[in-house]
């Protein structure tokens, strides 16, 4: 656990503190994201945790031990550190870069070699081909991954990450974020993560600390912050789309209901009756193998659906072949899919199988729900 007590930092020659009486607790195994505009003190705070910057006053505790009691270099050896520019040593190979901290600890060569390969595999790089490359031979995304691997070399319980994915392109960034979330689900490290991007904060953080002008403005879970912004600064910072952003926190599986009515092609002429019987507003069409290939709603059959030709019903249903969402899809993307297909329903899939239905009204109700309801 990391705890900051009344931490203040005033830089030499400045009167306004860069960080002002900051108190904060980061529970073990959680990712805490520091977010705010540039110059808000988030990086300074991060760098005080591994004593790259010494606070002017206040105390920082790691596992209830004052960090001033340990030698700065020893302290840093035990804390993973990733920065935006990565800072790989250009004259050392990938393996040598990852081995820096193990070498500082004096690990035997064989153990280091094994650990390097293990880490390379963990971050999705082939040890055989990557090990002996130099940083200049890697792409931006690969370099960033090596940076993360290097920080995790001795499996430190705490990691400090200063805009770690800030320098890579948006597609690679998204990918790296997902990868890192996957790793973190297994590793459960205590992570401090600095970013200026609120979307990244919402995506990565178990908790978010919003900074402004050296002060902590709000500290809470992403849901709390999106639902109840503490003040105008926070709501401005989150943006007008905060409701949509909140939808990024939940998944389709959270709101899916049972698929009431499933029909085969042959049953199309009687579809209206079937739906009434099952009291369902939506009927899924499955192919010969039982795989969903579209759906119809009460609107389509116009109440007296029996008069519409089965062919046109078939076409309508097949037109929604893409209007299905995987259980893991976030609600924001599901909503986008609904708008794209101009429908109030989406089929929910578990792999290739139909697993239920999600409706626009369910999403709407969910987003209006207040905390605790």
């Amino acid at each position: 656990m990391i705890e900051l007590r009344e931490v203040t930092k005033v830089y030499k020659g400045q009167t306004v503190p860069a960080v002002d009486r900051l108190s904060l607790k980061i529970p073990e195994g959680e990712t805490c994201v520091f977010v705010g505009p540039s110059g808000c003190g988030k990086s300074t705070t991060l760098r005080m945790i591994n004593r790259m910057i010494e606070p002017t006053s206040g105390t920082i505790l790691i596992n209830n031990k004052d960090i001033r009691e340990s030698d700065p270099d020893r302290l840093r050896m035990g804390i993973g550190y990733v920065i935006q520019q990565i800072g790989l040593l250009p004259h050392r190979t990938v393996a040598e870069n990852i081995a820096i901290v193990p070498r500082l600890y004096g690990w035997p060569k064989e153990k280091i070699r094994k650990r390097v390969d293990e880490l390379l595999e963990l971050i999705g790089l082939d040890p055989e081909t990557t090990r002996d490359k130099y940083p200049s031979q890697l792409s931006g995304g690969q370099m960033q991954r090596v940076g993360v691997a290097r920080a995790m070399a001795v499996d430190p319980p705490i990691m400090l990450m200063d805009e770690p994915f800030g320098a890579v392109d948006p597609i690679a960034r998204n990918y790296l974020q997902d990868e890192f979330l996957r790793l973190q689900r297994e590793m459960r490290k205590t992570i401090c993560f600095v970013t200026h991007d609120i979307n990244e904060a919402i995506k990565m953080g178990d908790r978010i600390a919003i900074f402004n002008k050296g002060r902590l403005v709000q500290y809470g879970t992403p849901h709390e912050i999106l639902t109840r912004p503490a003040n105008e600064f926070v709501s401005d910072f989150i943006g007008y789309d905060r409701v949509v952003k909140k939808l990024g926190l939940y998944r389709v599986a959270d709101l899916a209901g049972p698929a009431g009515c499933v029909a085969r092609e042959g049953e199309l002429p009687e579809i209206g009756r079937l739906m009434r019987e099952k009291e369902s507003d939506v009927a899924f069409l499955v192919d010969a193998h039982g795989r969903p290939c579209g759906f119809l709603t009460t609107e389509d059959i116009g109440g007296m659906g029996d008069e519409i030709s089965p062919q046109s019903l078939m076409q309508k249903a097949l037109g929604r072949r893409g209007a299905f969402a995987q259980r893991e899809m976030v609600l924001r993307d599901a909503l986008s899919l609904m708008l794209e297909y101009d429908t109030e329903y989406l089929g929910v899939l578990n792999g290739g199988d139909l697993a239920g239905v999600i409706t626009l009204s369910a999403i709407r109700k969910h987003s209006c729900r207040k905390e605790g309801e």
Partner: protein
Amino acid sequence: MNYIRFIQDNIPLILEYTKAHFSLVLWAVLISLVLWVPVGVLITRSEKWANRVLGIANTIFCIPSLSLFAVMVTIPFLGLGRRSALVALVLYAMMPLVRNVYQGVKVVDKSVIEAARGMGMNYWRILWEIQLPLATPVIFAGFRITVVMTTGIAAIATYIGERNLGRLISEGLTRFNIEMIVDGALLIAFIAIALDTMLGALEKKIVPRGLRVHRGH
């Protein structure tokens, strides 16, 4: 040709001068390295001192070489001869060596240092394992300038009593011996160009490996 005959007739003398020349250059460069490389590293820790030291180096570098030799001679402990010559040459070498060591170390990417510090590497480790290796190309460039420059200026030390290749020129001028002058001048010019070319070829080779390879190779 008279010029070639002069060399043929005076091989032992020329060899003696060459030996004396290079022993002076060797000592001057060695002392300069021992003295100025640490100074260059040291001043990276303080911008104020860096400006002062580089300012002094710059000023010394402006002083005409014959002037500097002449001033050295008047200093009692130094006098005519090798000591004065060495002190003057070492003072000249201050500028290229201190400047290049300083710039080489300073120019190392700040994020690399930041990351290394964040991993718990101490000052000496960072200096020894990161800054100096990455600065070697720039430091070597300074070394190259120093060697070539020292070789040239050392010839002038003949006027304060050094018996080296410069003596061919000074003797030639006093005796009005054209062959001696021309051979001496060409020999010195040739040695300087050859040294510069050799060290230049070496300079290309000492770039740290990671900085030489690039994507796609």
